[in-house]
């Protein structure tokens, strides 16, 4: 599979003089789950909307599924499943009616059978006759995912699909996505959850419309150059205050009674941690998490 599913470069979009997406490049291979991360308002939604033809880039371009995103939007659309941040099916139609409508919009052959299959696969069967507006958040997301899978898309664009969904439902949602990836469906998914980011094959982190880092989870952690030590035991709060003022330390995060202390120089961080730790507290080597990497990236990002 030499041809990437998404291959765009220099993509730029401004609204009213404010650059929301700034010369963004992206390459996503077939069957990949590509995580798209970044703070609120960093341009994730805008970028995804440009990929599926909702918006037209001001500059840059490239291909999506081998078609030009600027001129061949109509040929891309039939093969893409897009799930918006907001629930965007009809609340005053039933689950089944919504799916039948989507099937007809995509011109799915034998829609009844396809809808029945999808409902069974997504375990939506028992809600078949219920109005979509009456579903809970998690089930709405599941219905929306079902809606964008009916036409067997080759690419899924999911814009924060699990926002506000409970952990159980999120896990099931991700199991579905992995199942699709195994079947060769490529997924570009934006999220704010670190545990979800870790389930992606590759990640891109953007802020202020610019790409700050990309790669696999290990690559990103290694690339950040951060080392983390844990301070466990009593006196955590006092130690945190002291460490925050310490120049050798970049980040201190409290998890219950455990402090995660990170910085670029492993030895220096260890020394700082030992100095700050109160009596009876233990200092152990820890693992740098994605969250620390992203917070470092976000702090380093320069507002244009």
């Amino acid at each position, binding site marked *: 599979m030499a041809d990437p599913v998404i291959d765009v470069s220099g993509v730029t979009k401004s609204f009213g003089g404010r650059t929301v997406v700034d010369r963004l490049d992206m390459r996503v291979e077939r069957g990949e789950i590509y995580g798209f991360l970044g703070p609120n308002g960093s341009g994730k939604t805008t970028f995804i909307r440009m990929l599926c033809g909702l918006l037209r880039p001001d500059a840059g371009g490239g291909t999506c599924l081998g078609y030009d995103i600027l001129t061949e939007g109509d040929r891309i659309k039939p093969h893409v499943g897009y799930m918006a941040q907001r629930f*965007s099916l009809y609340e005053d139609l039933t689950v089944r009616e919504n799916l039948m409508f989507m099937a007809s919009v995509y011109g799915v052959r034998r829609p009844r059978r396809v809808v029945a299959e999808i409902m069974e696969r997504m375990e939506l069967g028992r809600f078949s006759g219920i109005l979509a507006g009456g579903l809970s958040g998690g089930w709405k997301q599941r219905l929306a995912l079902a809606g964008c899978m009916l036409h067997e898309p080759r690419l899924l664009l999911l814009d924060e699909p699990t926002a506000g969904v409970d952990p159980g439902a999120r896990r099931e949602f991700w199991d579905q996505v992995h199942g699709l990836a195994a079947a060769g469906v490529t997924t570009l998914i934006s999220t704010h959850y670190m545990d979800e980011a870790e389930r992606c094959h590759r990640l891109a982190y953007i802020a202020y419309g610019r790409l700050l880092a990309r790669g696999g989870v290990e690559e990103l952690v290694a690339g950040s150059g951060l080392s983390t030590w844990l301070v466990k035991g009593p006196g955590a709060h006092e130690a945190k205050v002291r460490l925050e003022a310490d120049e050798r330390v970049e980040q201190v995060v409290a998890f219950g009674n455990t402090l995660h202390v990170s910085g670029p120089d492993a030895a220096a961080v260890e020394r700082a941690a030992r100095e700050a730790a109160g009596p009876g507290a233990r200092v152990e080597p820890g693992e740098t998490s994605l969250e620390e990497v992203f917070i470092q990236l976000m702090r380093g990002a320069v507002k244009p």
Partner: protein
Amino acid sequence: MVAKEFVQMRRDRLTFAMLIGIPLLQTVLFGYAINSDPRHLPLAVLSGDNSPFSRSLIAAMQTSSYFDLVRTLSSRGEADRALDLGEVQFVLTIPEGFGRSLLRGERPVLLLEADATDPGATSGALTAFRALAVRALARDLSGPPSSLLPGEDPVTVRVHAQYNPEAVTRYNIVPGLMGTILTLTLVMITALAITRERERGTMENLLTTPVRPLEVMLGKIVPYILVGYLQMGLILLAARYLFDVPFHGSVVLVLLLSVFFIAANLTVGVTISTLVRNQLQALQLSVFFFLPSLLLSGFMFPFRGMPEWAQAVGSVLPLTHYLRIVRGVLLKGNGVAEALVHLWPIAAFWLAVIGIGLKRFRRTLD
């Protein structure tokens, strides 16, 4: 709470403009445009007589300010056609040898035919005409030619209120109501239906599917064309069986010609939806379009009674022309030829609105 409400009002510019604009528009329209005793109504004369009496009669009519002589006719057929088309409101027929028989005291017949589809427009002028004709001629006759018995009118004035001889207002109102109801509901329903799709985010979803924008628009419009026909059917049935409105022309023709009117209104609705951000604004803008249609189309007040600027605005609105078509066909028994004269302004309006709508629609995708 109050302060917050004002801040929000200021943010929503369009709503704010409407809050000011709608009362202003209403005041202006009601205050200036409405005149229940219209004057300067167009008159055509079919005269077989060239005596000084005819001339002074016509002069007196014009001086009364009720009548403006716009045409001189040469045949009966022309007179009927002018009335059918609504080119003139009145046709005065002066019989051959009018002057001579007047002098002989034969009390010749003066015939004034009025297009009385809207009785309100003509009643004032008709009342004035009787007194005016007798007075004008009596003055000319006060010299030696008078051979009439004292106290007797020199002429017989006959007035024909055409198309609506009993001056039943509802004959005029009910067909008019059809256009008004179609305008209100169709513009509003489409504007709201499309704005709702955008407000709820379902439009975003639709636009990522292979459906084309034009298909989305058509998909939204076609069901409401059928709704429009359902409404028309109900109103026509009510007109016929509840209000006994006489149908002189072909109902099928009305239904056929209505396609353009319905389409024009739906397109206005679609275009409104491209200009607004939410359903409230859509509703307000619909009302903003509906008010002039209601007041300036000749539905509520005689078209010819309005000042010229109001008539000019009214001539742009599709309802004005649709009323003429419906009244023309139903009350006057007009056929295709007469109706077509009023059809093209509707078509022109429709095309113009489609143009604006398509231009705006492409931009809102971004």
